[in-house]
């Protein structure tokens, strides 16, 4: 029985093998989607918790993109049905080579990629789409009706909404204009899935978010719990029916 949570972690934190174990724990708790982040030295849109995890993965563990692809392959072999979305800042996958990276993802039956610093209509985004990977637009309440209409005309099928104007791991709040954004997506693309993330840290937040969209996206809360050594407890509280 899956729970409508997309749970995030940084690959290679605190080590590559431990991040794989955490992914397994997410799967065991019934999380519908895994969002697995390739660590980057300078995560420009993340808060202190994910930044810290990235730094340790990069500086201490020297995690490469190939290391991440290896971990993804390991998880995929044992969980062939699990939905996985990969997240990376642009420079790491740009340097790796976008067509090659997309090909590796497709081999692992991974269909979606989140690149927070890549506008989904830029030349590199076109390269990604042309190589069979669907980008997940990360939108906020200030997306204009016209801009959203333009995005909805394209082939996206999953939308990641920022709960409010903030970085990851901030205090939770839901921007009042998000409702209009959700309505516009639903009206044009009824089949598209929507998740809301940034700041979700309690069962109440999860319930509030999943009463209007498909998934609650949780990152910093789980990573912080992992740092504090109480991931099992926190995950239990957030995923309990």
């Amino acid at each position: 029985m899956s729970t409508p949570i997309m749970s995030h972690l940084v690959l290679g934190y605190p080590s590559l093998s431990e991040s794989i174990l955490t992914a397994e724990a997410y799967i065991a708790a019934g999380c519908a989607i895994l969002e697995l982040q390739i660590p980057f030295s300078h995560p420009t849109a993340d808060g202190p918790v994910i930044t810290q995890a990235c730094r340790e993965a990069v500086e201490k563990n020297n995690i490469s993109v190939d290391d991440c692809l290896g971990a993804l392959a390991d998880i995929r072999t044992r969980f062939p049905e699990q939905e996985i979305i990969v997240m990376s800042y642009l420079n790491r996958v740009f340097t790796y080579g976008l067509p090659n990276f997309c090909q590796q993802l497709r081999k692992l039956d991974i269909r979606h990629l989140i690149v927070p610093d890549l506008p989904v209509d830029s030349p590199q985004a076109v390269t990604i789409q042309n190589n069979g990977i669907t980008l997940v637009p990360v939108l906020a309440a200030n997306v204009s009706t016209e801009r959203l209409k333009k995005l909805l005309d394209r082939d996206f099928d999953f939308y990641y909404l920022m709960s409010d104007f903030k970085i990851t791991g901030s205090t939770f709040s839901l921007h009042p204009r998000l409702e209009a954004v959700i309505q516009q997506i639903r009206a044009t693309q009824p089949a598209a899935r929507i998740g809301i993330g940034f700041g979700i840290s309690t069962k109440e937040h999860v319930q509030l978010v999943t009463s209007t969209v498909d998934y609650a996206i949780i990152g910093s809360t789980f990573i912080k719990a992992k740092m504090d050594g109480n991931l099992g407890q926190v995950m239990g509280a957030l995923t309990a029916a």
Partner: protein
Amino acid sequence: MQIIETETTYKSAILNGKGHFGPYGGCYVPEVLMPALEEMAQAFEEIQHDPIFLKEFQDTLNEISGRPTAFTPLPRISKRLGGAMLYMKNEGLNHTGAHKINHCIGQALLAKRLGKQRIIAETGAGQHGYATAAVCARLGLDCTVYMGRKDYERQRPNVYWMELLGSKVVPVDDGSQTLNDAVIAAFKDWVANPESFYLLGSAVGPHPFPAMNTFFQKIVGEEIREQCLNMAGKLPDYCIACVGGGSNAMGIFYNFLDEASVSLIGVEAGGKGTKPGEHASKLKRGVEGIFEGYHSYFLQDGTGNIAATHSVSAGLDYCGVSPILAWLSDEGRIQFENASDEEALNAVQSIAREEGFIIALESAHGFAHAFKLAPTLSKEQVIVINASGRGEKDLFITMRHFQEESLLTYAKHLLNT
């Protein structure tokens, strides 16, 4: 010489409103920042053809920063070197001590035009932050400046000036605690407050910043054209500028880009060696990447992570470089060279002793290269160097290098009184 403004010239291509310079440039930011950048780009397009805005910009430059800045021959040093005649464009005479105020005034007037109340800025050594704080105080804008903890500690006088001017200075504890981390912290503030105006400090970042800061800095080259014709009777044969992000370089180079007779040389920080982490030479040793909103050359670790940099001058100690310079480097229009920490320090001393000016360590990199070039040229040739800033801010760095004992004595005196 009449320049026909068509798409085929470098100058018109840079300001064509698209923000792409060959393969470089672009606008690589989270979607949440797109409305703010689109609004800024739109306003930038408008002001370029708005005589009222342009007059206000020019009047403000003249009134608060004393433009035009001096164009100064360097006869003693030219004679010693025994080649070309050297001149310097003294941008250090600007209010707050460097060329930075040119783009700060331009951007702050643009922010006011958009009805913005709050300014966000990043700073490395504190020069851009200091200029931003001064302009915000003057225009009555609320100002928050992000500064890496390391820079905050080692550039405390500039922190004090910014605070005295009413700005909030926030030390950043992330990463290497330098400029790069300050830029990221400023971007995060902007994500959380997209109604604020990000006043960026160089010709880097997402569109429209590289073109916009070039536009606000091009006054430097315009003044040089007129001053050089008057004083030397000809256009420069060479223009030289130091290159960190590239704002002072674009300022001096832009006006001459379409004239093949003017050679343009950018000088990057050679630091103390050629190994990663020992220098800040992006165009010589960096690789293509996309970071902090733009596509350009960056110093990286080979696997897509951003590498550490080093320069004795904080203003050049940065991992990226203007996408416009990246393109003009590929095109062969601008030549890029290096000067080491040691060469820059020596240039500061030469200009002080032989010409009577204390130049900034950043600018000294350009002078260091000019000293190598001048003896290879004839006496009829003219080299113009952009003295982008004055050197008083470097007091504790240069004093430690030249007179460490007196610095220690002075520090003890301060502590005991």
